């Protein structure tokens, strides 16, 4: 890559860092200052403004794994495998945060940290699938077979997400029904200020995803470059 292109990419990266920082700060102001306290649950309901974005970010990350895995199996291009691997790691981190913040929210509202209902159990299964995906990549021999097995697991794992989404509609669960996208329309079940804060938080977390993705992809590419040079050194000596 020529120096001009490197500089341009760095500049784009800096803009994204500032946009993400600004977005997260604005979301924090919205969550703790602007938005009114919910009438029935009280102050604890404010967890929603980062619990839902964490869930959104993890689902989006797993969707990227799904698409990149299909593209890898089709095109056999290592680039798609890098994107899938990078996105799976981010997805697992944010799915873990969903599984942590959910019980913290549930304890004062439901009187229990955890219940084995359809939404919670299927989210735990999703987390376990992608932890297995990362373990498969970490434990097996490097090469195209590892990438292929991981891609298949990445695709199969994503099929759980529609099940998670519809689980609260198909079964009677403790977990609340969707509030943003309802039968009456988008955002009809929420106060406009709550909807705006949630929207802002969702945007900030989406920017955060792209920022983290940039770092994770760079990490995988650096590893590849080191491996390539090591192999070169081995063959030359």
């Amino acid at each position, binding site marked *: 890559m020529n120096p001009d292109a490197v500089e341009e990419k760095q500049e784009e990266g800096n803009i994204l860092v500032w946009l993400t920082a600004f977005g997260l700060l604005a979301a924090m102001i919205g969550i703790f200052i602007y938005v009114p306290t919910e009438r029935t*649950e*009280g*102050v*604890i309901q*404010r*967890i929603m403004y*980062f*619990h839902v974005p*964490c869930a959104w970010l993890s689902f989006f990350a797993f969707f990227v794994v799904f698409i990149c895995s299909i593209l890898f199996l089709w095109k056999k291009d290592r680039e798609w495998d890098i994107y899938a691997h990078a996105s799976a790691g981010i997805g697992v*981190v944010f799915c*873990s*945060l969903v599984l*942590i*913040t959910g019980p*913290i*929210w549930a*304890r*004062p509202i439901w009187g229990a940290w955890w219940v084995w209902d359809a939404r919670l159990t299927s989210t735990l299964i999703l987390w376990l699938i992608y932890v297995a995906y990362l373990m498969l990549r970490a434990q097996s021999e490097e090469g195209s077979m590892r990438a292929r097995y991981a891609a298949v697991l990445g695709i199969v794992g994503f099929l759980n997400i529609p099940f998670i989404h519809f689980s609260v509609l198909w079964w009677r669960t403790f977990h609340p029904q969707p509030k943003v996208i309802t039968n009456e329309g988008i955002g009809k079940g929420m106060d406009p200020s709550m909807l705006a804060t949630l929207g802002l938080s969702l945007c900030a977390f989406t920017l*955060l995803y792209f920022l*983290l993705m940039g*770092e*994770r992809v*760079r*990490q995988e590419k*650096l*590893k590849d*470059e*080191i491996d390539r*040079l*090591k192999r*070169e*050194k081995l063959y*030359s000596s």
Partner: protein
Amino acid sequence: MDNLEFLFAANVFVWGGIVFYVYTLKQRNRALEKDLNLLKETLSKEG
């Protein structure tokens, strides 16, 4: 209803988790960059 301690705990996990993840990513990338530069230097000296 006042459950501030739960809200505080959730905040600590989310923001602490994000900051920790970003920090470890940055550290790992910095270490890899260092390794790569060292390797390049060694290779250029050898040949």
